[in-house]
């Protein structure tokens, strides 16, 4: 018998990019029109942006403010002239290498503690204690022939990084303690800590910072008085810890109850159960939310501007805030946005790497 049915062939080759594009974006005339309009709009926005930022922009670092203002595009001269203020704030001009070196130390410290080879309690602690000490020595001085420079002169990127790192350094261990206390079997402690966490979370960070900077000095006895910077960092760390504790608690709830019970029945002690069984798994569960919390905290450092710190946004305001450059605030803000982007994007890419790495071995 001969086969009379029409021959059917199944295309085994995947469709080419041209077919793909046609099928996805131009299936019907109406959708084609929408696609073309969308593409046109996107192209126009991109072109306008590029034209402003690159083609019509003034790239000459020595251009006068007048020629710069007359130009159609961005005036990058302001960055060339005032970048030191954005990065270092009010730090004395001839000592700014110290501030730059301190930034490098912080970045190196964070990068080192991201490398798996350093993931051992002692090594991490050594890196952080040494790094923070070196940062402080470089910024503050007063030793080894470095002139003393008070915190009121710290500023720019170095201050933003310091506040972020110190907040995490204090806030992260505190958050673990809070999360464990919240799971305590004593109701007084678990309820009390729960109330504390909820109280901190129901206050805006702005008012916590303001209270720590302005109100707290009137309540503390004299011997407890510290610099405003450290009070503000404490406030930010408390806020960070309250949120992070809930994230870790969520991670702990994702660890099957049976594991803890099995460990108990094997006679493993509390600290061992927590540090070797519960926390590692809880951390893995909580990782995406934790990275999120770090990113948010980095961006929230800009709020310290309300209590008069020269972090990077305030420094930016000071950078364009002079008679010659008042018109160039867009360029300064674009530059600051770029700095934020570099830091936050690396943070979130690192988080993605960690998630991939930690997924190995599960399921």
């Amino acid at each position, binding site marked *: 018998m001969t086969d009379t049915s029409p021959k059917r062939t199944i295309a085994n080759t995947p469709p080419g990019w041209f077919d793909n594009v046609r099928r996805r974006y131009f299936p019907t005339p109406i959708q084609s029109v929408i696609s073309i309009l969308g593409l046109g709009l996107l192209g126009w926005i991109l072109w306008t942006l590029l034209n402003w930022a690159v083609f019509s922009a003034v790239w000459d670092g020595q251009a006068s403010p007048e020629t710069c203002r007359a130009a159609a595009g961005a005036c990058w001269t302001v960055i060339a*002239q*005032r970048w*030191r*203020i954005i990065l*270092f*704030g*009010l*730090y*004395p*001009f001839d000592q*700014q290498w110290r501030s730059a070196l301190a930034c490098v130390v912080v970045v190196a410290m964070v990068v080192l503690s991201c490398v798996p080879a350093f993931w051992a309690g002692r090594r991490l602690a050594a890196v952080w204690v040494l790094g923070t000490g070196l940062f402080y020595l470089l910024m503050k001085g007063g030793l080894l022939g470095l002139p003393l420079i*008070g915190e*009121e002169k710290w500023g720019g990127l170095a201050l933003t990084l310091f506040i972020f790192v110190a907040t995490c350094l204090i806030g992260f261990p505190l958050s673990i303690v809070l999360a464990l206390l919240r799971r305590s079997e004593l109701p007084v402690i678990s309820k009390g800590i729960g109330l504390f966490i909820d109280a901190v979370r129901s206050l805006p960070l702005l*008012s916590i910072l*303001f*209270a720590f*900077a*302005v*109100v707290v*000095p*009137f309540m503390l006895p004299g011997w407890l008085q510290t610099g*405003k910077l450290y009070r503000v960092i404490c406030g930010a760390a408390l806020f960070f810890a309250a949120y992070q504790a809930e994230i870790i608690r969520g991670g702990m709830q994702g660890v099957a109850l049976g594991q803890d019970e099995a460990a108990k029945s094997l006679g493993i002690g509390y600290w061992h159960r927590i540090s070797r069984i519960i926390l590692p798994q809880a951390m893995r569960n909580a990782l995406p939310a934790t990275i999120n919390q770090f990113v948010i905290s980095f961006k929230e450092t800009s709020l310290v*501007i*309300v*209590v*008069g*710190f*020269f972090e990077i946004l*305030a420094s930016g*305001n*000071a*950078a*364009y*805030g*002079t*008679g*010659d450059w*008042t*018109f160039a*605030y867009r360029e300064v803000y674009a530059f600051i946005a770029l700095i934020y982007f570099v830091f936050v994007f690396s943070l979130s890419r690192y988080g993605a790497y960690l998630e991939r790495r930690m997924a190995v071995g599960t399921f």
Partner: protein
Amino acid sequence: MSSGTYGLLAAAALALSGSAAWAANGDTLKAVQERGNLLCTGHDGSYLGFAEVDDKGEWQGIDIELCRAVATAIFGDPTKLTIIPISWAQRWPALQSGEVDMVIKASGATLSRDTELGLQFSLSYYLGTTKIMAHKELELTSLKDADGGTVCIPAGTTQQQQIASYGAKLGITLEPVIIEKTEELEQAYFSGRCDLYTQWGPVLAIARAAKGNPDEHVILPDVLAVEPEVIVMRPGDDNWIDIANWTLSALWFAEQEGITSANVDEIKANPPSPDVAKFLGGSPGMGASLGLSDDWAYNVIKNVGNYAEIFDRTLGADSPYKMDREMTALWNNGGVLYPYVID
């Protein structure tokens, strides 16, 4: 100036601690001398012409120069000064807790600051007026011609009430456009969304000089309100107030007598009159009763300059803002400033 919600919090902090708890009551001069530097106010960013940061990260501006003058009066050295950057809302708590020794931060003398907060004021070193800028093409000569126009107003400031009551007085109606952030507000005016822009005088003049094309805008002669800017200090230290007042007075006296940082040595060598000789420390009596050296005023003029020099450098002819002295001139130039008498 604007302070918003956090001003309330700051006031609450003050109330909480009670007016009896003025932490650093007592001899401020002695505390400053023991510390070895004067703590004075800066800004959390830049406040054009009053407190801004130059290319080297140094504070400049008229408020900063006055801090420098006081530091020089005490130590004979303008570098013995630490500028603490603080926000508007933080001014009074910072003063109360001793974080700063005096507030020189474009702060007006008001009833509530004087009586409820219990602050002490110096003489007024600057008269800030609330004024109105208009696009020149509208050909306005005063606000009276602007009936029905739109006006850009900074949100949450006294200017809102001032323009409303001034407009009512003239019998005209204005359409308000209220915007919080200064950059957006000025963008709105310069892009033509508003016909008029009302603001504290120096900010307005600086906006005209530095942000737009100065020839396309006029500042109308109407004065909506006057705010005397003063140095603000803690209560209970009369000598400290005297030092602030006499430092200001010395700047004006030097201007009145034509003593500048350039010719002060010459004049000290050949003083034209006994009061000038005493002023520059050639004969005793200028400093002892204040707790300062007799040549403190000489040091101030030599290192910082007289009031005209300070003004020209920061707001006037030698600055990018090119502002006129207007009311903030000396009495012999039609202004309202005058030195105390040196006897």
